[in-house]
């Protein structure tokens, strides 16, 4: 039987009524972004996986409190990010995550000229090295907004900051990044 895909709000409503399949669809839809957000915060893939799983389980038992019509993504990201912070704290470490770029050329695309690729790759590596050198707060806000493409609201939920704080810290972080890259690089 073919039907149109269910809207998020319908899935949430069904899950609230105890529909496990509907909740399974929500898990499928958001486990990727939840896992990556947790990975940024917890600093380890094993802790991130654990935090994402625990977050989805907790969200299921708290679903009756979820406000009908509200977006599900910031809510689940907030719960999972909280779990990730708990794990990082329990492990007694500061998140010291170093992101890497993919070495291989993207598949399914016409390969660019070797020169172009080399320049691109070099620029990316330089930028990433500069991001990795930023202090944690700066790196987190840049990673949430640009690497995970979270909205301001989602970033605020994930990092446990106010929206205004996200704005101000992001602009400060970009300023520091510009300094690191050298004034002329990204004026």
């Amino acid at each position: 039987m073919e039907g149109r895909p269910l809207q998020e709000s319908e899935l949430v409503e069904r899950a609230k009524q105890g529909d496990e399949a509907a909740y399974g669809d929500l898990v499928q839809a958001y486990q990727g972004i939840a896992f990556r957000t947790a990975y940024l915060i917890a600093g380890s893939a094993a802790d991130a996986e654990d935090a994402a799983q625990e977050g989805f389980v907790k969200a299921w038992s708290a679903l009756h409190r979820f406000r009908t019509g509200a977006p599900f993504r910031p809510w689940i990201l907030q719960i999972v990010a909280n779990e990730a912070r708990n794990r990082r704290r329990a492990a007694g470490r500061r998140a010291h995550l170093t992101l890497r770029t993919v070495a291989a050329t993207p598949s399914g695309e016409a390969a660019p000229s070797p020169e172009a690729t080399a320049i691109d790759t070099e620029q990316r590596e330089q930028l990433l090295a500069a991001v990795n050198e930023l202090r944690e707060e700066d790196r987190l806000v840049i990673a949430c907004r640009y690497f995970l493409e979270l909205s301001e609201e989602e970033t605020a939920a994930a990092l446990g900051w106010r929206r205004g704080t996200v704005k101000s810290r992001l602009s400060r972080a970009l300023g520091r990044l510009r300094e690191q890259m050298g004034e002329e690089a990204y004026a």
Partner: protein
Amino acid sequence: MPELELALRDLGTSLDWPAEPDLEQRVLRRAREAPARRRLVPRRMLVIALAVLAVGVGAAFAVPQTRAAILEFFHLRGVTIERVDELPTVPVQSGLGTFLGDPVTLGQARERAGFDVVVPEALGTPDEVYFQDSPPAGGMVSFVYGTSDDPHALFTQFAGRVDEVIFKKIASDTKIEPVTVDGQPGYWLEGAHFFSYLDRQGDVQSEQVRLAGNVLLWERGTRTLRLEADISRAEALRIAASVG
């Protein structure tokens, strides 16, 4: 969009993330087990303490007659802790939500509270936020970490005033130690406890808090803060120091 932002977005597409786990089946299996795993009774009930929220000291003294001898007093702004030799028993409640007030967002709590709402950075964003209208004046904001059915920390704040007092009764064997948080006085109490308060109609209600935790009560400016969790004193003080 400026060039740097574009370059960051482009960089984001070429990052080497660890493989995304498939959580659906594991989550659903755990979800099915969840209701049965929920604790119905707090783990530790060795020590019982009672907190009474009352308007005015006179009213506070009129609240549940334990007929127990008052052995000691400890004072903070808006809170008096008294050590008594006997405590009343109250029925077990199923969740925290009933006495914490209305579920709200953090933003709504900030709008409604008659004081600047603070957040303990070390705990991150609360999973649930509640607001209760006065009493006490200015309302009371509570943050639940975990869910109200299975909380692992409860952080409460209100504008403590000298003419409005929360009474907390502790048993004679409850451990209570004076502490200092950021130069301001507080008390560390070890043991699970009962809680009673004055509701919006001014009636005394008693509930058992489901957290089998210890309590840190401390002052911050004109606010009185309370953290309850099953954690050590050192950990509680570390969380208290992160309030900003």
